[in-house]
């Protein structure tokens, strides 16, 4: 197990290096400059700015600078917000995105699994159709539309919740709802289909024959296997949701870090592009690693040394 983990760590570092290098190559090969705006400018001003941010240096020196900054976890100042370091931006935005994300994930996983189980147990019944109808709606309505509808109806028309911003539990309800609906629907559908499959297996029949209570069968025997596919998608899902949703954060004016992924690229804010990429990559790689570990725990048939030995 330890050997497996060490090996995985080494692979993770190599993966990260490849991601950084590719990002750098893509970043410098796309035309544009962080100092392009619709405002007036002139050559002298542009030259001073380029010099200040070392953008007049050869590309390989810039690359080495980036590697150095990543190795020391100091990405330097943001170009579009010159008095704030990339670390400041991420340090301020991430806890907020994390808070929104973890609540949404909890809501999505819990309600998704429950919905899936109920649908599977009442297979082809009214409840199944209702639950799956809801899931299809959840998957097909984009969250930005759902968010706008929620605001219009619940905040503007009925005045139950505040419209936007992030300051009290009441402010959290609508964004959590909007963000959780999609993942919930996916999880519900997955749980239902695997649950249906598992429920027809011999060992479930065996458990029934033993006279175990239906709930015990579902929770202890069926669910454990039915959750495998759910665990599989959790890695990417969690990484994606926790690092912030650009659209939801924009609509609800939540000061999370989701916006930096998009805006840094639009503004060619190189240090922020690098910072967010590294941050997200590390997060995603670690989540995938945890998912692999979780497989082994849930399914003893998966042996790490074998997997690692291939």
């Amino acid at each position, binding site marked *: 197990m330890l050997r497996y983990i060490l090996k995985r760590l080494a692979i993770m570092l190599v993966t990260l290096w490849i991601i950084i290098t590719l990002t750098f190559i893509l970043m410098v090969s*796309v*035309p*544009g*400059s962080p*100092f*392009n*705006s*619709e*405002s*007036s*400018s*002139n*050559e*002298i*001003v542009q030259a*001073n*700015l380029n*010099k*200040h*941010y070392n953008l007049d240096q050869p590309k390989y020196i810039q690359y080495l600078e980036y590697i150095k900054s990543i190795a020391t976890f100091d990405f330097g100042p943001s*170009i*579009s*917000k*010159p*008095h704030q370091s990339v670390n400041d931006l991420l340090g*301020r935005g991430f806890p907020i995105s994390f808070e929104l994300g*973890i*609540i949404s*994930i*909890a*809501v999505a996983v*819990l309600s998704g699994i429950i919905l899936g189980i109920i649908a599977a147990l009442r297979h082809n019944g009214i409840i199944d159709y209702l639950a799956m109808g809801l899931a299809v709606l959840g998957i097909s309505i984009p969250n930005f539309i759902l968010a706008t509808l929620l605001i*219009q109806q619940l*905040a*503007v028309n009925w*005045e*139950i*919740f*505040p*419209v*936007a*911003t*992030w300051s*009290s*539990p*009441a402010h*959290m*309800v609508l964004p*959590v709802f909007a963000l959780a609906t999609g993942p919930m629907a996916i999880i519900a559908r997955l749980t239902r289909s695997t649950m249906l499959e598992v429920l027809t297996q011999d060992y479930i029949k065996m458990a029934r024959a033993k006279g175990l209570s239906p709930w015990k069968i579902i929770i202890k025997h069926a669910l454990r296997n039915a959750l495998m596919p759910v665990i599989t998608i959790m890695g990417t899902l969690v990484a994606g949701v926790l690092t912030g949703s650009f659209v939801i954060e*924009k*609509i609800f*004016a939540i*000061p999370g870090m989701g*916006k930096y992924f998009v805006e840094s690229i*639009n503004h*060619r804010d190189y240090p922020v592009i690098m910072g967010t990429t590294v941050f997200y990559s590390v997060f995603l790689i670690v989540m995938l690693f945890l998912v692999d570990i*979780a497989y*082994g*725990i849930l399914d*003893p048939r998966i042996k790490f040394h074998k997997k690692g030995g291939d």
Partner: protein
Amino acid sequence: MKKMLLFLLTLLTVVMLAACTANDDAGKEEPAENTDHAEGDAEAAENEDDGKVLRLNNGIEPKSLNPSIGFDSVSWTPLNNLMEGLTRLDEQSTAQPGAAEKWDISEDGKTYTFHIREDANWSNGDPVTAEDFVFAWKLMLDPEQDPPSPAAFLGYFIKGGEAFNSGEGSADDVAVKAVNEKTLEVELEAPTGFFLDLLTNPAFFPIHHQVAEENPTWHAEADSFVSNGPFKLTEWEHESEMVFEKNEEYWDADAVKLDKVHWAMVNDDNTQYQMFERGELDTASIPAEMSDQLIDGDNVFIGDYGGLEFYRFNLTMEPFQNKKIRQAFAYAINRQDIAEFVVKNGVDPAFGFVSPGFTGPSGSDFRDANGDLVTLDEDKAKQLLEEGMKEEGYDELPEVVLSYNTSDTNKAVAETVQDMIKENLGVEIKLENQEWEVFSAAQQDLELQFSRSSFINDYNDPVNFLESFITDSYMNRTGFSNEKYDDLIAKGKSEVDEEKRWEYLYEAEKLLAEEMIILPIRYYNTVALESDKVSGILRHPVGYMDLKYADKQQ
């Protein structure tokens, strides 16, 4: 195996905990209605205590509140209310005494001596001194600043400014000096008729130099921020809100009616409109898709905004090396229809280049005085195209591609122009869109043949825009070079007699229309929804929103 079980148990516990948290939240979510109402009441109560509180939206976090570093509207709109330059725009958008009480101008128009008000103070009680301006202006021009100012070119009017900024001169050679504590002397490169207007620009705001020398990042947080304008910065929660309070130290504090200003940072058109509807904001912009519905309402403010949307011809690419072909394209466009039915939102079609709102020495508007220069004329357009093609020996016009940076409005305008050119000239042009940065790099490098562009004025004078097209200007981006034009602009900048100076600018604009290196589309405007309770917000054609005289009924 036991270890595995233990691990499994831990995992289960975590899941359970998460579930509990979720349940707790669900519990909290239920009575949200009550919480919210209670909060609403609390807010109302807070408002009563705080006096008059204006709620605005700044869209996003200001780039920087260091005067010369911000250089965008999200930084300079708040800053314009925190700080004050030597001059300040009044209700008629003309420069009036601000931090300076009066000034003397030398006979050659090159030396300005400003007398700063005795009662002009910083929010910490210290007096505003001439040294504060010297410090701020040299900081703007310093190429070694962290970071260098993107607005530094505005300071090139000051003698020695360009040399210092380009690294050839030194800070000591910049001709701005503090004669005594309250007297500032500035020498200019050449007479500059609009210098007093220029000084209203936030790039020229002072910086409390003792504070800044002690703490170079004084401007980054609310507790260290010192201001000399109508308001002071009391709270700044980055990326989410700013709170301004009336600055009692401001020399004209009696004129300031608001007690507080809240700036939200909501970067979504629909959301900020929904907040306005709900009463969480006092002003808002109109979301594009609701324009038709809202634009004629009583609560809509529509005003001039100094700026032009236009298409650039690239004179280094065929067929636009030919003047007549360029003119033909320009006369084939029905600007009235584009403004009214495509862009909408109350914008005006551009029949000239300089936008309305610049008042000349004789009191008349530049635009009215110089009249319409490009209008729709299908016959003339067809004839010009024929002549132009003959001059170039074309049997068929080389392929024309119109490029624009990706946006819904830009696309709609480009498609309309494509239609009009097809209908009025019988020429098929192609459309192409690119992401903003890619697009603007290509435009700068003259790689685009026919491309969309826009200009927003930095200061209140027609020369600001017209100067873009002098030979080798960074803003030229057309390949245009014309000695006569360069000469007219040089005179239009430095002529001491204002009447004459404007004559040169009229002539320059006419030459621009004759050469037709750009095709004007429409002028910009300011449109804002404003709650009935709000009054006195100044929105200048060139300049930033001013809340000095703003008021809100309780």
